[in-house]
């Protein structure tokens, strides 16, 4: 199927000459733009056909985007179809910084699969640029249970720690 592509796509020559870090950013950005333009979902084969980037490279970047929950995949038999991870309905910008420069952002997402709370883990790198390190998505209806369990778990851990110290 023919995919809708962004108007401006960086040339192959330019892409090859970028620093590895920039190349990764560039490909991931391009993939996200394509996912946004193609709501019906895209496959690696379709992408490889139309944007002339190596299939393995595309698959590995798509895997990264799925891991950090910027995209999600639905498996249909042996085929994976990728989608952009919904529209941000609400984002909380309070960033709780810890001494190791990790912090978390909270989003509320809305997509075909339902409504979700998405917690994204971010970290500042040596250039003080923010990198997404991971994330977790919890369905709306499960969120309160999740919080209760998390609190229970936190209490258990603290109790055990304090017993050990005594």
């Amino acid at each position, binding site marked *: 199927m023919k995919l809708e592509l962004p108007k401006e796509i960086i040339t192959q*020559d330019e892409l090859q000459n970028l620093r590895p870090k920039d190349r990764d950013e560039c490909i991931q950005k391009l993939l996200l733009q394509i996912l946004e333009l193609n709501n019906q979902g895209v496959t690696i084969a379709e992408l490889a056909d139309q944007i002339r980037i190596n299939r393995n490279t595309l698959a590995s970047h798509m895997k990264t985007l799925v891991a950090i929950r910027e995209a999600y995949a639905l498996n249909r038999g042996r085929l994976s179809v990728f989608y952009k991870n919904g529209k941000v309905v609400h984002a909380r910008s309070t960033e709780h910084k810890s001494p190791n420069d990790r912090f978390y952002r909270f989003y509320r997402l809305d997509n075909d699969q339902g409504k979700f709370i998405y917690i994204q883990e971010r970290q500042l790198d040596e250039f003080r640029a923010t990198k997404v390190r991971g994330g977790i998505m919890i369905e709306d209806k499960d969120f309160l249970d999740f919080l209760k369990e998390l609190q229970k778990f936190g209490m258990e851990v603290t109790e055990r720690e304090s017993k050990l110290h005594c």
Partner: protein
Amino acid sequence: MSQSYTVDKLYEDRFARTTQITLGEKVLLTPNFCTLVQNQYEFDSLIKLSLLDEAKYLGAYVIRIFDTLNTLIPRLQRQNQMDISSGQSLEELFIRFNRTNLGIIDPATEYLLYEFHAGRFLRTLRRIRKQRQLDVLIRYLEERYAKKEQLKNNVIEYEAWKKAAHKKFWYNLDRNALERGRFVGDYLDLETMCGSGISIPPVPIVDSEGMLDIALRINRLAKAIAPRTKPYATYLLLQKSVLRNDALVDKIIEYMKADPTQLTIIKIKNLDLWSAGLVRQREAYRKLMDSMCEIRKKNPSKLYMALENWFVSFASACYGFNMVSTSMHGYDRDSEYGTNTRGSWFDPDLMYYVPFEDLETIVHNNGNRLPCYCSICKQIVSLENIERDAWNMLRREHYVLTMNEYMRMISQAIKEQNIELAIDKLSNSEVSRLKTLIPREEKQ
């Protein structure tokens, strides 16, 4: 999730509108005045001013990349150090300021051609870059300095060489995809390291079609590689002579129409539109702003920002631009201002400067106070005993608050569906020629 602004329209009056821009915790009301900060004293002042209730329209600040070494970087480094007695960060005030104010780092690439800050630019680059970042830029600047020394008795020859070398630098960079990719990537990294809240590409100063093409290509490349966790801006850095070139202005407008980027930043170096005999330039500037309004009508989330906008700020904020910026003393031509003498005072009614020597008469005729109601001018009771440095800082603070007040006035006029008030204000000022920049009626 990529970072982008949310733009909510508040009020609208024909072509003008006020909006609220939200980026995380940062909320900016437009029209907004972004102060260009040049040293640590100005930065301290701005942080102090931001605490005032009246400073609602000062949501962002601009720092040139070579000024960050004395302003932003030391504070960013100190913000994680704790004060033992209070348990708070040493830079608690700055942290609070930075949480609600948007920091913009100006790439300042025009100083690859201009002389004034080039030395500082080179020294800063050498100090803040990591590993062998931006070698190509440093090599160019070093070569320029060697040549300057060699031709110190022949300024004309040096100027000609410099122009040619500058052109050659950018054309070579444009031809070599590997160097261009590294250069743009390294520069964006450097901006991030200096605390920038927006990625702005390092583009050449445009004086010809060739340079504009290079600038557009760099914009496209930077857009592709800029970190998606931070907003990105299209940046156009123009020489004032561009306003006399209709073909270039048309090309810029075409690009702006097709460009999907949410924020576009335009800097016209040494912009002067208020002097006599500049009808053509004023027309071209107005044409640029017409197109901005037109684009914004189709895409309401589009934002435009003008850097180093000098006296034109008021007219720009009324019509085409959402955010305007000038230096803290109001002058945007490279020179030493207010260092050896008591600098001029910006008259809010005249919208122009009054020399310090003339102020005594004005104060005398105005019941022994300055004709301004800002909280800074209210403090000044006598001009006689005021120290030179203290005066120069107060007049800067007064200027920032005056610009904040102008932005408030424009917002109020839009809210009351009476934007003509802004045109009348310009008509009664010393820069009345600028009134032609704002249309009376909406363009159909």
